[in-house]
């Protein structure tokens, strides 16, 4: 083998080695890239699952909260109905009281008339009966006080039930944003 032939063979061998190394590196890089893509895909699947689980959990909590709030709304609707019944009862009670008061006033007038006659008879009999008591004058004031009491009770019940209803409505959560 001449020197020229030996150099050509060496160059050929080196070229082959370089091609082999480049091919190996390229193959390694391709495998590495494929592995990275697989890991990335698995991570994305895992993250998506975690997000879905968190969303399901939040949704479950919201549904529980909504159920409890709806139960509260039902209770307060029942309370409002009771308030209306109380108002009706109070109105009946007020009516009964007025009738009772009218009877009492009548009895009082009769009694006062008897007192007045007795007073006159004692004077005619030369006895000192003392001053004739004033006729009762408290009726209107008492009636007004009772009416004001009942009105304030009704106003209080109505205002509190309405405030409770508004609180329930305000605390009702908005539905969560659903992502595709």
């Amino acid at each position: 083998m001449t020197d020229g032939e030996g150099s050509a063979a060496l160059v050929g061998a080196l070229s082959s080695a370089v091609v082999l190394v480049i091919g190996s590196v390229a193959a390694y890089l391709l495998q590495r890239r494929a592995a990275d893509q697989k890991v990335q895909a698995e991570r994305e699947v895992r993250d998506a699952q975690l997000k879905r689980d968190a969303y399901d959990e939040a949704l479950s909590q919201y549904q529980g909260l909504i159920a409890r709030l709806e139960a509260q709304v039902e209770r307060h609707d029942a309370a409002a109905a009771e308030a209306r019944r109380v108002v009706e009862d109070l109105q009946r009670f007020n009516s009964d009281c007025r009738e009772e008061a009218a009877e009492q006033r009548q009895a009082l007038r009769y009694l006062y008339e008897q007192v007045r006659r007795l007073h006159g008879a004692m004077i005619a009999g030369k006895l000192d009966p003392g001053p004739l008591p004033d006729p009762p004058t408290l009726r209107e004031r008492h009636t007004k006080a009772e009416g004001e009491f009942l009105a304030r009770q009704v106003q209080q019940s109505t205002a509190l039930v309405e405030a409770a209803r508004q609180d329930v409505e305000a605390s009702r959560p908005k539905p969560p944003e659903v992502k595709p």
Partner: protein
Amino acid sequence: MRILLVDDSGVQLEALAYLLQGRGHDVHTAANGLAALSKLSVHLPDVVVVDLVMPALDGRGLIERLRAEERTRNLPVVAITALPAGDHGLAVLPADVTLLRKPFDVAQLEEALARALEGGMPC
């Protein structure tokens, strides 16, 4: 704040309890003075809110019983009532009782609770 609500009106009691609980208070309830005394024998609240006109033992009677006992003598009390201003029942209330006339809202009640706590002596 631990609050004992005493009122014979079921509607007002339930609504007030709900509203106060929604504002972070620990609320217990009683329908009259006797039921309130029973609850107070177990737990002392920070303040008692009591309606004046009730069956069994009314608000004035309950306040008298509270002031008569060493354990509850200095318990802050807010008296709530629909009695008209100038009613005899309001005039005989102890000076350290905070009075709130109906109708009131929760904000006004919370102000009254704060006033009662400021004026009340530690138990």
